[in-house]
């Protein structure tokens, strides 16, 4: 975005575009949510217990949001070392979340909940699966940040700050999205 010379607001256009993209992603999950409720209301809905892994995963993703946030604060605050190792930890926690989701699906499958059975199970796989894809996107962004952190000289510029903020906001977004989905699945199954 080289053409923001006449930018009218204080928000960087890229960041604004990211918010629009998040709105769009949110609409997709709203569609899943409403489809979920409509389907549930039509009956033939098998109830089951959510796998324990989901609780642990929620803790992991919340923690990763926190570490990434502190990493950003350290980046801006000039604490190079803290910024770098917290970034690494955030990335590892993100991977751990995905691995944990995989374990949770395995647990579910062993409980006899599979895609081909009742729609309640199929919805769970679908919603958490599409969410995992969005986590994957966030991990890609953190990975790029990670490479830059260790290959570029440490320097706080507006451009790098903005990039980091966008990565952070997206990561918080998929984190909050997960908490929302988890609560939805927990209380409406």
């Amino acid at each position, binding site marked *: *975005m*080289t*053409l*923001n*010379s*006449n*930018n*009218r*607001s204080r*928000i960087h*256009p*890229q960041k*604004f*575009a990211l918010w*629009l*993209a998040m*709105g*769009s*992603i949110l*609409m*997709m*999950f*709203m*569609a*899943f949510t*409403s*489809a979920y409720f*409509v*389907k549930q209301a*039509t009956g*033939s809905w098998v109830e089951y217990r959510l796998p324990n892994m989901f609780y642990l995963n929620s803790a992991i993703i919340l923690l990763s949001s926190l570490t990434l946030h502190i990493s950003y604060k350290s980046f801006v605050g000039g604490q190079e070392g803290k910024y770098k190792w917290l970034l690494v930890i955030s990335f590892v926690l993100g991977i751990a979340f995905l691995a944990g989701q995989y374990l949770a699906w395995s647990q579910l499958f062993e409980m006899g909940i599979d*895609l*081909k059975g*009742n*729609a309640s199970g*199929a*919805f769970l796989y*679908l919603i958490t699966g*599409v969410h995992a894809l969005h986590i994957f996107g966030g991990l890609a962004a953190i990975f790029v940040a990670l490479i830059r952190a260790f290959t570029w000289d440490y320097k706080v510029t507006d451009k790098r700050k903005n990039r980091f903020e966008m990565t952070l906001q997206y990561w918080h977004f998929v984190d909050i999205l997960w908490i929302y989905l988890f609560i939805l699945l927990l209380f409406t199954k």
Partner: protein
Amino acid sequence: MGHFEATHELDVMIEENGYDDHFHDHHHGDKYQSNFIHHYIFSMDHKIIARQFLITGIFWALIGAAMSIVFRLQLGFPEESLAWLQPLLGKWIVVSEAGIGKLAPEFYYALVTMHGTIIVFFVLTAGLSGTFSNLLIPLQLGARDMASPFLNMLSYWFFFLSSVVMFYSLFLNTGPFAGGWTAYPPLSALPQASSGSGAGMTLWLVSLTFFVVSVLLGGINYVTTVLNLRTKGMSLWRMPLTIWAFFVTAILGILSFPVLVSGFFMLMCDRGLGTSFFLSEIFIEGQALDYIGGSPILYQHLFWFLGHPEVYIIILPAMGLTSEVLSVHARKPIFGYRAMVYSIMAIGFLSFIVWAHHMFMSGVNPFISNFFVVFTLIIAVPSAVKVFNWITTLYGGNIKLNTPMLFAIGFVSMFISGGLTGIFLGNSAIDIQMHDTYFVVAHFHIVMGVAAFFGMFAGVYHWYPKMFGRFMNETLGKLHFWGTMIGAYAIFWPMHYIGMAGVPRRYYSFDTFDSFAHFGDLNKFITIAAIIVFAIQVVFVINFFVSIWKGKKMTTRNPWGATTLEWTTPIDTGHGNWPGKLPIVHRWAYDYNKDERDFVTQITPLAEGETPGDH
């Protein structure tokens, strides 16, 4: 380029009043368009991307229209041999021993399906808003380019990829998808349901998923650009109505297309992973399938939650273009500018809460239907406000009846005729008779098919000089207009009568319905009219492409005497749009016939004691 020598009076005005954003201090302009590939193919310049969208749209429009001619031949002349089409359509024309060629019924459905998909998505969404949002948003707002030229380029190439996949599906051995453009399950969810439901449907889903990515990348860019990159003085209330329309269109796209993708994901799961979202107990060839408890109605909800905003994604840009063209060529300010803006917003908002009027006959609760009837009819209010304002803009104007103006007036005509039948169809009681008949076909073709095409044509003829530096041939343009105007009514007006009598749409043949036998001649008439209208569109396409090289050259910057910023750029508009400083806007976009001046550009400062035109 840092010290730009201003010679043209508009350049002088911009140089004196504009502001320097130091855009040309860096030499990205030269690197940016240095070779053919970067200039014309993987271009990041919004003006080139606009032309890419337009030309791809024209390509698809020809294919989509040609398909309609083939199925109209079947409907108008079911007894005639179509053997002459065999070289083109191959095995889909079944030739009997007596040499009589028949269109294969499966392929008839494929043609109907592809016609809808292509025209709705590829032509009237990408070809219309893709073209003009790209061309006009930066130019009319005084921006150097889109917020993200790179995402803008990706937006086009995702559309291109989607086009390639869909085009490929036309040549599959089993044919393209044939279950209707709405792709309702079970025809879309069971690969074995029909010949097009296998590979054809898979490619349809892949293609449209790419298409949604394109729409989202484009839409995010348009909204960001409108909100962040307007030049100094260009407040929201000084934006031309074109921009307001593109802005609301983009928001509708961002909010509704993801919902369609959700539906697509669920459909993909049903097709490939054995889930039962949309499939309930089904027997095929005496065998029970594994699916249990799914709901095909659920898909319809998800589809129409996009589907209804989608018709406004199609019509709003056409409305914006029409408003602008009417005002310029009537030499009058648009009547009720703010009412127009509020109408656009109201239509945009209401479009999200009327989707189930497409589903009155699917067994939804009649009380819920009432809710949707009421909101559907309320859309008539902002629509009527707009029509009133267009007509009032024309009233007492110094009307120049050139081709863009004719098409803009034609748009208003089509929008009225098509809109009125919408009031019938919006009533759930009348819909019992009208649902899935030719009345519906006539309604939506006039109101969002022909009308949107008219808005697009008005835009193409009006902004052609801006895109190619030349004019299209005016005589051929007028022939194009009158032929299309009369022809389109000749095609769709009779369909209302056929529809009121209950003739259902999408039927291959009415052989077995004696009650519809007397519509045979009317169907012949419609088919002949369709062929003539198609031939006239070929005239347009020839005019379009020949004029790129042979058209009358544009000698002045502002041939129409318009007030908006795009006409203050040089004839050969380079990268960054303005060669020197950026213009500063001092007034709204509709100062025509003001204080004895024919028009006053937006960059002209207010004279001493002058009251703004939009006071």
